[in-house]
């Protein structure tokens, strides 16, 4: 079906709002492209609609809300005395303001601590940029050194602990796993002693070697309990 100018005018808003079927849209485009008047009309209305959509909402006069509230709820009773003077402070008591206040205070505290400003003995000189920079640099280096030392200490402690655990594991091996000599059934070894198995011997030797290495890495500890461990564990 071929569309006429009347069709175009009647369905223009449907076209702009995307409510035409593909066939109708094709017929619309065919006519609008071939008819100068309709083409101009489509272009101008399309631009008008775009302009209307991009128009911003007008700001409401501030007094309007109060005027409406006065008309409907009645005029507010004017506060007298100290209430009228300190009424503006009511906003500070809200939970949101308290939250913001705590956040700001915490941030300031962190910043002041990081910049090395002493809160107990504040000095004006602490606020000079050079001093602030020096303090921040010093604090950063201190934190780095402390954290490095802490990590290093932790590593040593865990290493010692893991090796001691291995040692404890070895000493608390259940007796059921140790082969018992059975008098009367097996010849020899009837004196009540429990000789270590070859596997246990190997583990003990390995542990001894590891402790020797650890003792060499930790010269302070080597002369004390590590040495004693070596004496006690290595047969």
């Amino acid at each position, binding site marked *: 079906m071929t569309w006429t100018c009347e069709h175009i005018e009647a369905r223009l808003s449907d076209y702009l709002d995307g409510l035409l079927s593909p066939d109708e849209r094709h017929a619309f485009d065919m006519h609008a492209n071939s008819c100068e008047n309709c083409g101009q*009309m489509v272009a101008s209305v399309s631009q008008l609609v775009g302009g209307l959509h991009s128009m911003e909402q007008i700001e409401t006069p501030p007094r309007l809300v109060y005027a409406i509230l006065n008309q*409907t709820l009645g005029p507010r009773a004017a506060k007298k005395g100290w209430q009228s003077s300190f009424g503006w402070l009511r906003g500070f008591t809200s939970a949101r303001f308290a939250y913001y206040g705590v956040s700001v205070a915490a941030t300031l505290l962190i910043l002041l601590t990081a910049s090395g400003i002493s809160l107990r003995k504040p000095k004006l000189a602490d606020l000079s940029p050079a001093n602030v920079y020096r303090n921040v640099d010093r604090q950063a280096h201190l934190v780095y050194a402390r954290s490095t030392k802490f990590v290093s200490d932790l590593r040593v402690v865990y290493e010692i602990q893991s090796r001691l655990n291995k040692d404890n594991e070895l000493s608390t091996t259940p007796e059921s796993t140790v082969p018992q000599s059975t008098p009367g059934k097996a010849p020899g070894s009837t004196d009540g002693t429990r000789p270590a198995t070859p596997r246990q011997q190997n583990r003990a030797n390995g542990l001894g070697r590891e402790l020797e290495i650890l003792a060499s890495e930790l010269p302070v500890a080597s002369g004390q309990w590590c040495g004693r461990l070596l004496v006690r564990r290595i047969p």
Partner: protein
Amino acid sequence: MALCNFWGKLVTVAGFEADDTLEQDAQLVQQCLQGDGSAWEELVRRHTRRIFNICYRFTGNGTEAEDLSQDVFLRVYKTLGSYRSAHGGFATWMTSVTRNLLIDHYRRTKRDRITDSLEDAMPVVENKESAGRRPDQQLLLGELSSQVQTALTKLSPELREAVILRDLQQLDYNEIRQVLDVPEGTVKSRINRGRIEMARILQQMGVRPS
């Protein structure tokens, strides 16, 4: 994409599509009916801007728009008990009240109003350096606001309200049908005629498409 975002923002401002907005409005209305003054204050703050904009676009006059907005809220306050959420959103109901008041106002002031003809207004508007510029530039830059407002007030009230609700308040056809209390076909026809008529008025004012 940017256009979609902008459109979405406008729709959000219009406050019609969001379910949570509808629920909040319904809740506030219930609280108002129970005598909660702060709930009414919240309703007023939420809808004043939209109602003022409708009134301003319809009348083209800030003072009249303020007075009419106050009348709208006064009527809503008095008739809040008659609102039924089952018949539609509170915003739609409020827009309907606004529309009725605007039409009443239009009829009441018809005799007093100075109905300057389009031919009289044209030379004044054309002098406003509108000639020689691309209309799309002017529209997109928002420089045509006053011309568009002038053209809008030249429309008949039926076409004007349809264009305002559709293109400035971004209501969908169903909401406009509820507000105007006319069939959807009539709504579409009025919007279409309003847009074409307005484009012709702007063209006569010297704003021509490239």
